[in-house]
Structures are given as C-alpha cells and as structure tokens.
C-alpha cells in the first residue's frame, strides 16, 4: 500500500466537507475500493470513511417506502426482511465477509456491470439520495461503472418503494459467484419492472418488453414469445453474448415464478 490519510467524519456535513478536499474519495466497506488501491488503479490522497456517519446507517420503513442509509451493510439489509426481494438479493452478495463490510452506497456508486444492487434499484424505481439531491434510478445508471454522481457527491440513502411482489434471481459465474446474469422483477400496482444486471455492455438495464408482457399477465408464460437480442450483450471467457441473452429470459421467468 501507499500512504494516504483517512478521515472519519461523524455527520454527512462533515463528510461532504472532507470530500471537497484535494483528491478525496469516499470509503464505504472498502470491498471494491481497497483492492483497487492495492493495484494502484486509484490512488486518492484522502479516504473519507463513511462507516461512522450515523445518519447514513440503518433501515427505516414508513408506509410503503423503505429507506436504507448509504453506509448500511449488505448483511443488515439481508437480515431486515421488510422488503423480502431486496433482502434476498443482499443475502446473495459475495460471502459473509463481503456482506459484513460492503455497503449499498458503495455498490451503487461503483455500478459494476455484474453487481446485484443496481438491478434492485432500477427494477424498484428507487431514489438515490445524495448529500445534494435526489436522483431517480432511471436517471442514475449511465453505463458500466458510470453513474449520475458528481465529483465528491455522497450517496446518503436509497429509498425503495416496496412492491407487491419481487424476486431476484442470480445466475452465477461459478468461480467468482458474481452475476453472469441477474434479474430483479418487481410488481407494483402501476405495473411490473424488470432490471437485468451482469449481461449488457451498457451495465444494468430494463427489459421493457418483458415489463409490458408481465404487466398484462404476471406469469412466466407471459414471457414465452419474447427474446432478447444478443447485440449489446457481454461476451467474455465466462459466457458468450448469445448465452447471456438466452439466460436473461430463463432467469426472468424464474424470478417471476419465485415472486408469484
């Protein structure tokens, strides 16, 4: 490792102030960032640790909305259960060590194309709340590792409208157990939303044809005539674009069946 400073703010205001410093970077659970630093893919001068910011911790339910602090760990979400589909997803991330450290804010800020949380946020029409504004999930995800976050902006919370039914199905790449294809299906009174992670060169995306079909008929059978184009799918050593495109439909059907 190289030398850097770590600051441990107690409030969002302090954290935001620290982030304004020269080459400062937020530190969530460090599950992605620390390996990145070790490989010198990033080398900020200051890490602003968010784990001590109590305003960013915890999960609160009010009515049909679940608000999760940006520094809340995957383990805390997995154990909560107010939004079972979301808790189910959090419980499938990594291993216990990763879940005890990794945070929802870190995962969404990172927006890895194979990460799980982006699928939940997009399929739930969640709102990403930062120290300066609120961003609708539909506007937030902007491609692989790209988000609407500005320099220094901190995800302080994420607000999820709790659906009538939801499920996340993860088809894992067997070695890393990241999603080769992950699909989150959420059914609201206003309609069904389907978000796919792991598969596309553009990162998480909504499968709108499936949403329309499922909004009419929330059953796996409703997907039968549909297919996903392999054009923008990832092709790598773990799977071809064709295989990923094929899996999206199968995995979506599984999620629908599990949710209904």
């Amino acid at each position, binding site marked *: 490792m190289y030398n850097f400073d770590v600051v441990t703010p107690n409030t969002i205001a302090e954290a935001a102030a620290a982030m304004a410093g020269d080459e400062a970077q937020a530190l969530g659970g460090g599950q992605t960032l620390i390996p990145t630093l070790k490989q010198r893919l990033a080398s900020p001068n200051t890490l602003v640790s968010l784990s001590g910011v109590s305003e960013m911790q915890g999960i609160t339910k009010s009515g049909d909305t679940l608000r999760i602090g940006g520094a809340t760990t995957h383990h805390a979400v997995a154990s909560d259960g107010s939004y079972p589909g979301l808790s189910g997803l959090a419980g499938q991330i990594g291993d216990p060590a990763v879940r005890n450290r990794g945070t929802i804010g870190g995962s969404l800020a990172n927006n890895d194309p194979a990460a799980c949380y982006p699928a939940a946020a997009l399929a739930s029409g969640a709102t990403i709340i930062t120290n300066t504004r609120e961003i609708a999930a539909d506007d937030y995800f902007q491609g692989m590792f790209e988000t609407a976050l500005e320099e220094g902006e901190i995800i302080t919370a994420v607000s999820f409208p709790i659906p009538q039914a939801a499920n996340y199905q993860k088809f894992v790449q*067997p070695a*890393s157990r990241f999603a080769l294809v992950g699909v989150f299906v959420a059914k609201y009174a206003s309609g069904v939303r389907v978000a796919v992670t792991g598969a596309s060169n553009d990162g998480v995306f909504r499968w709108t044809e499936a949403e329309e079909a499922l909004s009419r008929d929330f059953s796996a059978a409703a997907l039968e005539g549909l297919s996903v184009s392999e054009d923008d799918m990832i092709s790598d*050593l773990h*799977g071809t674009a064709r295989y990923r495109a*094929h899996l999206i439909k199968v995995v979506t059907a599984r999620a629908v069946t599990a949710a209904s």
Partner: protein
Amino acid sequence: MSVAKPLPHDAAALHVTGAARYVDDIPTPKGTLHIAFALSDVAHGRLNGLDLTAARAAQGVHGVWSGDDISPMPDCSPSVHDEPLLCTGEVQFLGMPLCMIVADSHLNARRAAALVRADITPAQAILSIEDAMAAKSWFDGGPRVYARGDPDPALKAAPHRLTGAIEMGAQEHFYLEGQAALALPQEGGDMVVHSSTQHPTEVQHKVAHALGVPMHAVRVEVRRMGGGFGGKESQANALAIACAIAAARTGRPCKMRYDRDDDFMVTGKRHDARVAYEVGFDDDGRLLGVRFTHFVRCGWAQDLSLPVADRAMLHADNAYFLPAVEITSYRLRTHTQSATAFRGFGGPQGMLGIERVIEHVAHHLARDPLAVRRVNFYDEAGGASPPGPPRDISEPKRNTTHYGQEVSDFCLGGLVADLEDRAGYGARREAVDAWNAREPILKRGLGLTPVKFGISFTLTHLNQAGALVHVYQDGSVHLNHGGTEMGQGLFQKVAQVAAHRFGVGLEAIKITATDTGKVPNTSATAASSGSDLNGMAVQVACDKIKAAIVDWLGDPQARFVDGMVIAKGEARPFAEVVNAAYQARVPLSATGFYKTPDIAWDRDKGQGRPFYYFAYGAALTEVVVDTLTGENRILRTDIVHDVGASLNPALDVGQIEGGFVQGAGWLTMEELVWDDAGRLRTHAPSTYKIPAASDRPAEFNVHLWDGANREDTVYRSKAVGEPPFMLGMSALMALSDAVAACGDRFPALDAPATPERLLAAIEAVRA
C-alpha cells in the same frame, strides 16, 4: 497389526490446526532474500532488451538479473535441456520469465518485477492445434504410431462405421500450496534446498548443474507439499534453481514462491487434447477396428510430454479389447505454458477417447452403453471373484493389449457387476428413463465407466526406490525413504509397513522428511508408485535389521509381534531386545532397495510389458441437467475400486473420493481459457473454478473391491494415486446421457461440459 488399519493421515492434526510446516512456513535466517520473476506479456517474439533501471532502483532490491547477467543460463527441463531459467532471446510463451529480481521481501521483489520494461519484437505465435499442425510444429520428430494389425480391412468390412472427435480441456493443478523453494548456502559452496517438489533428486540434479558443482554438494529436503498432482514433478525446478544461484551469488539464503496468478501464468498444466476416431463394429457393438488420432498440445518445452502422450496411447483401449487398432499421436509444440505431468499422466486423455467411442457406438445401435462396454471387455482373469461368465473356449482369447501385454488380472466383469448390484443400476436406469419421459425441463442421466490403469513408470529404470531405517537403542525407529508426501498419505502407509515389520506400534516410528542426503537417486513420487516402491524398499531395510537381530538371538523362528520379540520360547519387549542387541554390537541401521520385477518396454516398437499390473475401478454417476440453462448437478456417485489388499482403507477411500472429484472437475467445470494473443485469461480462483466440497456428489458411496493384488506387491496392495481420477469420466458420460434424452442426435459433448456447452449440445441434439 498396523498394516490394513484405517488410520488417519499422520499429519491430519497438524494440517487442521495449521501447525504442519510447508516451505513458506520454515523460519528463515536473518538476511534472507526473496525472488520474483518478471514475465513476458507476449507469447512469441524476440527479446531485444530489458529496461531494468526502475527495477534496480526500487526499494529493497539487491539485484536484477536477466539473460545477460547469467551465463551459462541454467536449464530447468526434466528431459531435453530446452527450458532456460530466463529468456535468452526467443520469447516462447506469455508468462515466460524474463529476469529475476532479488529483494529484501517477497512484496518488494514483486513490485520491482512490475517495473521491468521489455522490448520484444512480436512474432506469429503458434497457439492452437490447427496452428501447430499447419506449421508441423511438434516434438518427437513427428507423430508416433502404435498399432495392432491394420484397422483398415476391419473398418471396411464392419457392418457399422462411425467417425467423430472429442475435445478435452487442460487443467490447472491448483495445489493449495503454490510452488516454493528456499536455498540455504553452506560452507565451501555447498547448498541446502527446501523445495516443494515431488522429485527431490531432480531438484538436486538441476541445482547442482546450475551451480556447476557435483550432486554431493547439494542436499534437498522435502517434508511435505500442500498438494502436487504432478504439478511439482518438473515445475519446481525453476524456483529451486533461481534460489540456489541467487544464494550462491549473494551468500545469503534465498526464497521464492509464486503468487497464485504467476503460478497459473508460468507453470504447465494438464495437456489439452483432441482425440479423433474412426470405428467399425458389429450389431452387438463389438469393436472390430478403431483408428485414433491424438492431437496433444504440449506447450513450448518438451518437459514430460513424450511419456504423457505415450501413456495416452497405452490407455487408448481402457478396459476394452481392440482387435485391430492404430493410434497416431501428434505432440504439438505451441507458444503456451509447457504442459506437464498431471494425475493420470495422459491416461485420462487416452481413455476418454475410447469411452467416447463406446458411447457413440451405443447411441448408434440404440443400446445401453453398459451392454456395449461389457461385450468389449478384456477376458476376465481366471480365479477372479466372482468368476466371469463362462466363455466358449473355441473363441480366441481377448486378453492382450495393443502393445502386447497380457492382461492377466482383469476383474472388471465382476467388479462392474458388483457396482451394478450395489448401486441398483437396472432399476435406476428405468427410473431415469421414466423421469426423462415425464419431465420436460430437468433431464437426468446415468454414466457408468470402468477404469483399467497400468501401474509402473513407462521409463523402466525409474521403477526403483531406496529406504533408510535406523533402530535406536531405546527401540524407537527413524524411517526415511525416497517418496514425498503431498497429502496423499504415503508416509503413513510406509510407516505402517515399518511398524508391521517390527511388530511395534506406530508411535515407535518417526516419519522424517525426504532428504537426498539420506536416500539417493530417487524417482519422482509419481505414476501412483509411491507406496509400491517405497513401501517395498522400507520392508527390505526393516527385514535386514530384523535378520541381524534374529541372527544374534540365534532363533530362526523368532517373531516380532505386539511390541514383543518372541525367541526361544521367551517373549521380551522390542526395546529391551534392541538395547541388548546394541550392546552386543548388532548393526541396527540398514538401507533397503527395491526394483519392480518383470517389466520391459520397447518404446520404439510400442511393444512389451510396461506395467507390472493394472488397477481397476468403476463408477456410476447420476446427474440432473436443466435444459433451459445447462446448469447441472451430480446427484449420486457409486464407486467400486480395486486397491488390492489395502494398506490403509481410510487413506485409500480418501484418494478415491478426491480422485473422482478432481476428474469430474476436469470434465465438467474447470476451464482454462487462452485468448487469441496466447494470454491465459483464467489465472485465479475468481476466474477458474475447481470443485469445492459442495460440488461433490450429494450421495457418494465408495466401496473397496475385495481382492489381493496377484503380483507380489507390498502386502498385495495396489497403487491408488491416479486410477480413481478417471472415474470422473462417469460424470461426463452421465451428462451426455442426459443431453441425449433431449433429442435424437448423438450429443458429441466436448469437455469441460460447462453449462453453456451443455446448452449448445442440447440445442444440437434437438436440431
């Protein structure tokens, strides 16, 4: 009685508590230096030069040496001196060591290695089988052909004829303990090397050569490895040589271990291969003529590829009598890591070829593959229990291999019958067929495959071993032999032999590290031969000491049992007798030597009796496949395996379970992927998946076949290291069976049968 007892591994408690010492755990003397290689990132080309300025200036660096700094460049090859320690001009694979960094810590050495800049003019790399065939890039001067008769007339006359090919992937050894070595310079230019190697004598030989000293100036010690699997038969040389030359130059202890990614990038793996076939057969599936072509990708250096590819040819029959057969084997030289020994040593590749042929034939005839297997089995040996079916004695014998060795111990007829019975094959076949008729999405499959594996090194002179046994005056015993311990339990088995000979408990036996200073000129612990060879050598040594004691006691009937020596009608404790013998000036130390009898092999003719005996086994595996995705699971595996009269049933069952899981891993999930530039893209556990405990069959029954070795091996036991690996073929055949249930065509399933490949096969049989 300590032989045949199911005792735990001698170091089991040390393993699970973390107290077992591996090379990297040995406390190093103050001032120890650490070594790392900088690797080529080009598969083939000319090295014009290296910019070492930054690396030399990096923190903690004591020296950076390239091909320009070391002359002559030491060779690491176990065969034909074609493996320079560092690149001397021609870059031969992506991952080839270009220079070595010597620094004050492992991390500083690795950091400096990352600062090395290489100027390489890339050249066209030969990567694939097609590339190599087009360029006639091969070892052994061209293809090697072994044959019995001429298969052409048989193929022409056969009522049925098929052609096909199967691809099988490479496999990373993934020993949990990576490669490691520690060299300690001694007075007068001598060198002591601790190496994680299956072949201490080879390391001694190569280090002596590199240092320009006689072998007596180098002592190599190996207490244990954290797994070897063949990956430390020749691959350990480079680290030991690098440490030794650095230690000689600096006068300081030097240590090296590969980071896991480097281990993947530098070291050889199992040979990937294609086996193409042409087969003629009758209505019963009886094979009349077979022609095989083996395309074996060997990588950049010859290494052990010739004997590996030879063994593939010698196992092209597996358990079946091939009346007319020709096998052509191409040993292809490619610009990739140098493929090397790996459990089975070519046997798996050869055997998978014929097993695929059987499946293809059975599918063509719409017969149960097991029935086709049976009609092609070698003749059951007389006196096998239970006896084989009666045979018409007017029929010619079907008990000679294509290389002229009589199969005199064949027991698979009875063994497979026992397996069918134990596992309920008939009823389960029906149940699986009924399931598949009923279920549209999840398909089940059964695969029952036999194993016949030849035991002995095909290089005849390697079939020798030595031992050194001391009995101290208090009756405790110091045991040493040429075999190495890599988790397989060799040391415990051999200790059981020693304890048995002296009639003492195992607590009286001290197991000690393999040491070239104690037992010289050893063979690699390989070819499954560890217990066969070293157990016998120890037996000989113990018996020499016993003979001296018996002679002194003056009672030729003297017996050593239960810690007592019974002579002249009097029973006295072993320790007491030994002490008295010592005082009477009886020698209490002896060496033992053993060489396998009755083997002879003419490699050029492809004829002889290369194997002392065969080890047998069979596995029945049931799988379920999701036909929407290709995901699959092993539901149940039943194994009956022949270890002769087991020296230690607990260790043998462990080897069988582990062998099966590793074999199934090779064929179903372990996938090494090289890109078009020759870069290995799977070089860490995040990209390369080996089976975990949770991937083993949910129900896993292993039964040891009841029968002693017909040959006079140590306590009539049989070798167990490699043969069970090939039981994993049953998993691939079970997957193929499940795919076959999806359509009419033959699922020409390649390995590894990953979910994506299975899905493609399912689509193909439906087309």
